[in-house]
């Protein structure tokens, strides 16, 4: 649970940094009320993580199918929130989906790094055990 909350806050932070970058680079800084962006982004992230928890239960022999399911789900949430909160007036839909894919890939690399650390730990335990 603690890890899930940390992930939600981390991806919310990352989403906001990306949104803020777009706003600044496109000179929308004074047009968009920040509070109107923060909460929907936060809720979208909660929904995304809750959904990824469910999609994580799906196991396939082909890892691409699992990733495709995750990305499709994330894109669906973003499209629904974008339509609801009028995000598409600011940023085209494809660019929001690209942002989501980018964040998914970042998350994937972070997860791989954590798993690699755990696997190394397990291999050390196995080595120690097999030496005995």
């Amino acid at each position: 649970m603690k890890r899930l909350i940390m992930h939600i806050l981390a991806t919310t932070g990352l989403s906001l940094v990306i949104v803020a970058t777009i706003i600044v680079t496109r000179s929308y800084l004074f047009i968009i009320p920040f509070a109107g962006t923060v909460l929907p982004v936060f809720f979208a992230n909660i929904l995304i993580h809750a959904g990824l928890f469910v999609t994580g239960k799906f196991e396939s022999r082909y890892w691409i199918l699992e990733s495709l399911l995750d990305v499709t789900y994330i894109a669906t949430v973003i499209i629904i929130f974008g339509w609801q909160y009028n995000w598409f007036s600011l940023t085209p839909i494809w660019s929001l989906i690209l942002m989501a894919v980018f964040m998914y890939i970042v998350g994937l690399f972070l997860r791989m790094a954590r798993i690699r650390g755990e696997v190394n730990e397990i291999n050390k335990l196995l080595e120690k055990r097999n030496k005995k």
Partner: protein
Amino acid sequence: MIVKMEQDSSVEEVEILIRYAEMSEDVERIATMLESATVRIKCSYDGGEKLVSVSDVYYFESVDKMTFVYCEKDVYRTELRLYQIVDDFAYMGFVQISKSCVLNINALDLINTLPNSRMEATLKNDERVYITRKYLDGIKHALQKGV
């Protein structure tokens, strides 16, 4: 470790005595291994039936509601379900590694990471099986506990 064997025609059942100075994980593991050597499960193969020692099993795999028993070289079928195997044989080092596979960690040689945070376990007979990330903690805990 010194292994002594003694023949005594008066005993009815094999008796094993483990003499130790201090109880340790290793002593517990040896005791568990000895106990598991006598635990057998009924397996079937090509119309025949056989009792297979659980300690000889490398992993159990469920395919289309059937449970297959993989030993070093042979494959059998059992009526046991994966959840029963996890419940009954966890103390012998059997851990779930994916939705359809329960592995004997005594048969595990090493784990490799694959793309998309997947893992592959190499067994002592060089066979490879997939590990799902959500079961990684279970493997680590079993090894830390010294099962």
